[in-house]
């Protein structure tokens, strides 16, 4: 069932113009596979995906192979503070005596998983809010958008600091506040999508056939703005990781026994003038590469979903 010949009766077949591909399976490819193909053509994007997967494996599987003590300060210390890299400690030790390489894995687990979870919260909340606002329109939309304006006019870092001042800090709480404060921009984008899709023929046809608003939102608006949701989600995860690390650097991040890359960099920066490079650069390099990789995947996804670029 691959050629055009199978679908069209022979007497209706015309000779295809020279050079035109008549193989239908090439012409009619499922939408997602077309997107994937464009994405796969982007070498840097593939490299970024590989890097991210490798980093996740490094942080989550690494500790199984490279055993270090990262929680019990009393036994971790061994009186070896700020030791340079050696055979025993491949990347040296930090100012509390923890093995730096193991610390990077341990902190990375928190940076990655908290960033991921907070990113998911932002996209879920943003999508729901944006779709309801955009689809219902009218007074509801106006009120919801003014509330959004208000939330957007408090700079995010100040909002986060305010929330941290008011609530007791914990890992779960950090996920929630970064998630709860990160969705404003996402809601704007998704609302734009909902406004657009609402006006398209298929939504109007569904309305004419008596479909309820919620049915249209769930069955038509949501699947058709999926491309934007996926793209925005990618950027959200990068933002969440950035904000988590910034809070960590300001000393308002994950509380003591745990750590993340931002907190580690803050501790490293205290030792900076002593020239203990191993406490900053390995973490910093992985961190920057992670953010650049995620951002690049996001941009590649956006390109892949851009209909205008389909005929490349």
């Amino acid at each position: 069932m691959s050629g055009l010949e199978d679908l069209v009766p022979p007497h209706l077949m015309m000779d295809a113009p020279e050079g035109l591909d008549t193989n239908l399976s090439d012409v009619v490819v499922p939408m997602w596979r077309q997107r994937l193909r464009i994405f796969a053509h982007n070498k840097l994007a593939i490299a970024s995906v590989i890097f991210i997967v490798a980093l996740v494996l490094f942080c989550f599987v690494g500790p199984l192979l490279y055993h270090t003590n990262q929680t019990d300060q009393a036994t971790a210390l061994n009186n070896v503070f700020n030791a340079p890299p050696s055979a025993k400690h491949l990347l040296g030790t930090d100012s509390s005596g923890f093995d730096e390489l193991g610390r990077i894995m341990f902190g990375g687990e928190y940076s990655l998983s908290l960033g991921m979870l907070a990113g998911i919260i932002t996209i879920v909340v943003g999508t729901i809010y944006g779709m309801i606002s955009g689809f219902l329109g009218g007074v509801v939309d106006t009120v919801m958008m003014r509330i959004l304006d208000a939330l957007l006019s408090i700079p995010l870092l100040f909002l986060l600091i305010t929330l941290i001042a008011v609530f007791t800090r914990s890992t779960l709480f950090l996920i929630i506040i970064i998630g709860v404060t990160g969705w404003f921009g996402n809601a704007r984008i998704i609302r734009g999508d909902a406004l657009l899709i609402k006006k398209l023929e298929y939504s109007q046809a569904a309305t004419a056939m008596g479909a309820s608003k919620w049915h249209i939102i769930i069955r038509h608006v949501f699947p058709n703005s999926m491309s934007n949701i996926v793209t925005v989600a990618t950027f959200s995860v990068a933002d969440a990781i950035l904000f988590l690390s910034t809070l960590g650097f300001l000393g308002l991040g994950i509380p003591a026994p745990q750590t993340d890359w931002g907190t580690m960099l803050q501790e490293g920066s205290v030792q900076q003038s002593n020239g203990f490079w191993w406490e900053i650069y390995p973490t910093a390099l992985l961190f920057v590469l992670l953010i650049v990789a995620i951002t690049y995947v996001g941009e590649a996804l956006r390109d892949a979903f851009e209909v205008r670029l389909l005929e490349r």
Partner: protein
Amino acid sequence: MLNYVLRRLVQSFVVLLIVMLIIFTLPYFETNGILAPAYIVLGTHATPKAVHLWGVQNGMYHPYFVRFWNYLDQVFIHFNLGHSYKQNLSVWGIISLYVPRTIWLALTSLVLTVLIALPLGIFQASKRNTAFDYVATSTAFVLYGIPAFLLGILVLQFFSFGWPHLPASPPGAVAPWAMFTDPLGFILPVLTLTLLSIAFLSRFMRSAVLEVLVQDYVRTAKAKGCGRSRVLFRHALRNALGPIVIILGLYFPGLLGGAVVIESVFNYSGLGIQTINAASTLDIPTVLGITLLVAILTLLGNFLADVMLGVVNPRIRIERSGQ
């Protein structure tokens, strides 16, 4: 035009009221209840009676809306943002001490950014897909991926601990004119904030100019024989400036957020350090006061951006004033 400005003004005011409602409501969610700050003010061993008295004195027992009304009255009629729990100063006193330093930091780097990023973006757009463009674009991309604090750490490493042995932090005095009497200490914080903003703004400028360069009127201008520079400056640039004006207005809060981090890296005693200290010592009135101020500045930035845009582009003015 007046109609448009008034409309935007009313809108901004409504948004400000919502912001104040949010800021006012947050302490209600405090983990240990609305009276928890009493233990910060009076000490951890305060007797229940003293805590109760503190609650009465501060009107904590009034109904929610009465308290909100009092808050509005306090802020708008008496310009009073409350008293710090930790420092023997009013919140307004803290703000007026430190805000000039932060504004200096933000404004200096904003001016430098505009002077550098706009020409850079235009140049990149006009030399699109050349080696220079690739280098500038990827540098901006990596700079954009580096969080502000990390860039600060790197700048310190290279310019303070390395050969150009610049001071790692500006003088501790809070006088806003210290930037002129002792400029050396201000170089690194301003440089870091400027680098961050350039990475952000030059990308925008480049794509704004590129977007305009493919428009029909640019093609027409080329067709009628305009020179390269005339097309770029008379036709493309004028139309690309609109989005940039908005971005600048919207970027201001980002700049303040960046300033918080930069102040913390370089130990620059400004509003940012005060906010962080207040947050970590649970000095809630100070945090809320500063947040409100920053929100007002942001709204003002958005408002000015919109008005400027209306001045630059008559279509928007007419469209948004409703008719």
